[in-house]
């Protein structure tokens, strides 16, 4: 959107106790606030009114097919990474009516499904997820064919990003150059700092409207020491990240390995349940279903999340193109990491690690890419 960051706004230091004022300023600005909260022993995104609803003092333990929340030794507001649902659900809703048709005499009348959208602040969005929004912007509204549902919602979003100072077990944003610090695309970015009894946020506006919000929050001028320690905290997070994908020539590498035996191996473990695609912050595939009522007087067309892991997704006249799970997994990974470059000019992966955490079978995309790369079968004649 039009909120590319400029760092000519003076950074300020907000005491953690004053975070509430930031939320109040957003509320006063007419924004509903979506932020991390604890539900079902997980950190999900939901509407909040006050800072007390944030998961202060909690962290998340993430591993392959494994997620648990745990108590932290400090009271950090953002001491965890990303949860089961990305912000995609607000902009690209799981299920939404697109149009309705009513029978009239000999014909029928079509009307677009009405939808009201209110201004919303994405509070606490991480750099990887922010990058995912930029990717979705490119895919869904970045060409002459625009998704009006996404566009209408996206225009109402204000971004309060939070830099990561502690990576999760499945993070690999450094490989995808999407974190752990936010480079652009925010209205406000915060860096949380807890040190020697001091608990502060370095706050930086990226847009004028972000600046206007921050001006309503008690803060002091950030010293060069504070700037330095915030930058170090983010760098430290980058160093702690252990997972990686080697992205050198990844497009060519994957294209050359369409027949790699690894695809067969991973298909044995893959449940084709579609969880990876639905938790992915950039997967945008959807299905269109038409419904009629019993009388045949009204019809509704509904768009809902779909996945390249279902048989119906690749169904054309006569059958499904990708009937094997091998073909479906290969399609997903190759599209995400390779074909996306051809199609949209970037990778489709932001390194958030959700597909690793939320795979009930514990498949790790970084491991799959490494295995394919290490055993690269040079393209040869059949």
């Amino acid at each position, binding site marked *: 959107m039009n909120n590319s960051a400029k760092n000519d706004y003076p950074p300020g230091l907000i005491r953690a106790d004053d975070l509430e004022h930031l939320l109040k300023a957003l509320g006063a600005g007419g924004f509903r606030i979506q932020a991390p909260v604890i539900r079902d022993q*997980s950190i999900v995104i939901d509407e909040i009114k006050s800072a007390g609803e944030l998961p202060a003092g909690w962290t998340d333990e993430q591993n392959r097919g494994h997620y648990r929340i745990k108590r932290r030794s400090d009271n950090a507001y953002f001491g965890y990474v990303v949860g089961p649902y990305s912000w995609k659900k607000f902009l690209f809703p799981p299920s939404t009516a697109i149009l309705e048709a009513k029978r009239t005499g000999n014909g029928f009348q079509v009307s677009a499904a009405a939808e009201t959208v209110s201004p919303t602040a994405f509070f606490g969005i991480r750099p990887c997820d922010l990058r995912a929004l930029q990717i979705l912007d490119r895919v869904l509204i970045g060409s002459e064919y625009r998704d009006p549902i996404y566009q209408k919602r996206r225009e109402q979003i204000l971004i309060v990003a939070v830099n990561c100072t502690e990576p999760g077990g499945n993070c690999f944003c450094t490989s995808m150059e999407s974190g752990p610090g936010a480079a652009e695309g925010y209205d406000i970015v915060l860096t949380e700092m807890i040190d020697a009894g001091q608990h502060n946020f370095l706050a930086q506006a990226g847009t004028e409207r972000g600046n206007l919000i921050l001006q309503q929050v008690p803060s002091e001028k950030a010293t060069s020491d504070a700037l330095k320690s915030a930058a170090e905290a983010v760098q430290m997070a980058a160093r702690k990240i252990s997972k990686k994908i080697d992205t050198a020539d990844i497009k060519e590498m994957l294209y050359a390995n369409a027949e790699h035996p690894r695809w067969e191996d991973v298909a044995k*473990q893959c*449940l*084709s349940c*579609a969880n990876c695609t*639905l938790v992915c912050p950039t997967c945008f595939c959807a299905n269109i279903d038409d419904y*009629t009522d*019993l009388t045949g007087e009204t019809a509704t067309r509904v768009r809902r999340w779909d996945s390249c892991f*279902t048989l*119906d997704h690749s169904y054309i006249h006569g059958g499904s193109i990708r009937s094997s799970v091998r073909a479906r997994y290969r399609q997903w990974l190759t599209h995400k990491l390779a074909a996306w470059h051809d199609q949209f000019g970037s990778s489709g992966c932001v390194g958030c690690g959700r597909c690793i955490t939320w795979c009930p079978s514990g498949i790790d995309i970084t491991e799959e890419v490494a295995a394919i790369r290490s055993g690269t079968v040079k393209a040869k004649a059949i």
Partner: protein
Amino acid sequence: MIHKKKPKLAVWKFASCDGCQLSLLDCEEELLAVAGAVEIANFPEASRAVVGRTYDLSLVEGSITTPHDAERIHKVRRASKFLVTIGACATSGGIQALRNFKDVKEFISIVYATPAYIDTLNKSTPISDHVAVDFELRGCPINKYQLVEVLSAFLNGRKPVTPRHSLCIECKLKGNVCVMVAHGIPCLGPVTHAGCGSICPSYARGCYGCFGPKETPNTSALSAQWEKLGSSPISIKRAFRGFNAFADAFRKESELYEK
């Protein structure tokens, strides 16, 4: 809409608990619309009236467990233009298909005072093993909204929207947190056909597989994960031996865990 004649609907019961056909009566708000759209011509659970001998749409509940029923289903087929089976019994043999893994004669001798009165088959089998079926609606019991969807689709000449994908997709559409990943609860969702609306995971329980196997189910990969979560071989076998025990994918997986 101009209907020359309302289509005649019949509901037939075979070996079953009646729960699925009751879903039709349980339609509440939609029940009047259903009654307005079709002529309920043969539905003993709802009315004694029987209209005519042939039917545009037959809903068949239950499995085939007796020689008598194995005959009767052919009569139902002959009397029906469209035949739709509803529920786990009709589509996979139901919970009574547990007999298929044992010797049914032994059961009879234990349960009945006069075993000679009992005339039953060795196996409980789905309707599609006996006659051609036009559409199968899964579930134990079926989801009444899906039943209305099947009726609407039939009346309007379109394909019903009853996806064959995993239950996981329903959880994600609903906003559930994965019980397997976040709570370590063994769940059959990744191999189970969607349709119930993810009832059990919505209450922090694992899926029991009431809707049977999904398209391309990878049961062995799921079992391997259940083992990692601490499930014993016997509990994995029992999980697959539920209401859809005789559905191919579930049957084969449970047999791998048989001693």
